[in-house]
């Protein structure tokens, strides 16, 4: 039995793409927390523009019919939607595997019980650190950590499987072992040690988040050791940090190949950061069917397959493996989304990303710019421009 990769890696660009495996439904951008590493866009969607219940249900039905297997109910905080139980029940009914990605804050026990009764398959709970005070500081809310502990207890009592997700950055990277112990203590079967990716709010905060190369190396060794020690008890999945890598990750498993994202307003994205590529045109579920957008949407076609690539990717034997890495990162650092992800050491911009990382890592302090509605959009632009400047 093998972990499945999408069948048919040799699909040409224009023939209908294989069905997506997963869909991330960003039900709302509202969230009681304000994590500085949040990958949500700096300009958050407002509640007034959110899709209504019936539209989400239709989208879930369409997704299931297309072949989507996993549905990630996310946000923001998905339980901030009043119709979360109804939406979950519908997703279960149409055969989707439902995963609730939650902060655990502001969710009443009764609500969680209703979700369990509706057939929710899995809960993924974020924790910010193993040290409660620091965790609360990162989340931007006092007492948040303790509430999460209580929430995790309810998840177990209700017999739901739990994954703990910890986004790793300078402010908690030394506590990975304690984070993993905490995941065990919370009763998780799986933990994600996910190094912060620098999009959205995280890019704003890069100087406050970036660890040093030594920290990253030590963290990787710790994860390897723990994975071995805890085999059969806890599954540890790690998202490796990009900026110090030699080869990029296959971002979202390949653009328009395995997964899609729907924003609170119904915009369909190939990856959650795709909106940073400003010349792309995105379709809305309110205007077209999901399958039409997936198969023919111009944003999906833009970087699907390999024909859009430039050197060094065009002639690289890894091009069907990592698909040239992340388009958004290529744009943010090199100015052209068709370039190889600068995380790749074959990219002429590789030295730049390494030096950006080292410069950010050398900064002191954790004076986070907290994620919130209408916060400093002007500052955001300045920050991004600076990234594009030669280093």
């Amino acid at each position, binding site marked *: *039995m*093998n*972990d*499945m990769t999408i*069948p048919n890696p040799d699909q040409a660009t224009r023939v209908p793409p294989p*069905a997506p*495996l997963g869909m991330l439904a960003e039900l709302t951008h509202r969230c009681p927390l304000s994590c500085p590493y949040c990958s949500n866009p700096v300009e958050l969607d407002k509640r007034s523009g959110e899709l209504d219940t019936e539209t989400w249900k239709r989208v879930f039905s369409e997704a299931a*019919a*297309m*072949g989507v*297997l*996993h549905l990630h109910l996310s946000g923001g905080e998905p339980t901030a939607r009043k119709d979360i139980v109804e939406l979950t029940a519908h997703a279960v009914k149409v*055969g989707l*595997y439902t*995963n609730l990605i939650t902060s655990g804050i502001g969710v009443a026990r009764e609500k969680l019980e209703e979700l369990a009764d509706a057939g929710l*398959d*899995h809960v*993924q709970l974020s924790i910010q650190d193993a040290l409660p005070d620091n965790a609360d500081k990162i989340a931007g809310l006092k007492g948040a950590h303790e509430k999460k502990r209580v929430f995790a207890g309810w998840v177990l009592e209700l*017999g*739901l*499987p739990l*994954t703990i997700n910890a986004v790793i950055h300078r402010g908690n990277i030394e506590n990975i072992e304690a984070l993993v112990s905490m995941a065990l203590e919370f009763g998780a*079967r*799986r933990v*994600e040690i996910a190094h912060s990716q620098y999009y959205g709010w995280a890019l704003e905060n890069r100087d406050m988040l970036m660890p040093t190369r030594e920290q990253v190396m030590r963290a990787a060794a710790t994860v390897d050791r723990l994975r071995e020690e805890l*085999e*059969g*008890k*806890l*599954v540890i*999945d790690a998202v490796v940090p990009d900026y110090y890598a030699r080869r990029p990750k296959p971002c979202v498993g390949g653009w328009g190949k395995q997964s899609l994202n729907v924003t609170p307003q119904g915009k369909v994205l190939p990856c959650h950061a795709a909106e940073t590529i400003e010349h792309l045109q995105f379709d809305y579920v309110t205007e077209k069917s999901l399958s039409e957008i997936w198969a023919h949407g111009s944003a999906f076609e833009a970087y699907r397959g390999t024909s859009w690539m430039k050197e060094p990717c065009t002639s690289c034997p890894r091009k069907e493996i990592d698909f040239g890495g992340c388009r958004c990162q290529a744009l943010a650092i090199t100015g052209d989304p068709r370039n190889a992800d600068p995380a790749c050491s074959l990219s002429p911009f590789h030295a730049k990303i390494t030096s950006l990382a080292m410069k950010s890592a050398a900064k002191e302090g954790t004076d986070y710019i907290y994620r919130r509605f209408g916060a400093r959009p002007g500052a955001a632009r300045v920050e991004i421009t600076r990234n594009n400047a030669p280093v």
Partner: protein
Amino acid sequence: MTDVASTATPKLPRGVRLRRDEVRDEWLLLAPERVLKPDAIAVKVLELCDGVRTVEGIVDELAAAYAAPREQIETDVKKMLEDLANKRVLDLA
């Protein structure tokens, strides 16, 4: 490592689902962030993992169904169950 006892009664925990995928025309085992592709025999084994049957019982049933040497089947089944338990997609208890 997990040693699979013959008396264990394996079952798929909540959050792991064996399902027929009509779009791709194949069997899938869905788990958190994972899609596993069981072959025909693995599907047969998984269908028997109901938390009531013992590993021993499952092996007996398969040996009868496939007219294959029991020992061979036992090794294969235990190996598979152990592998799935290590991935936390199967409960052995």
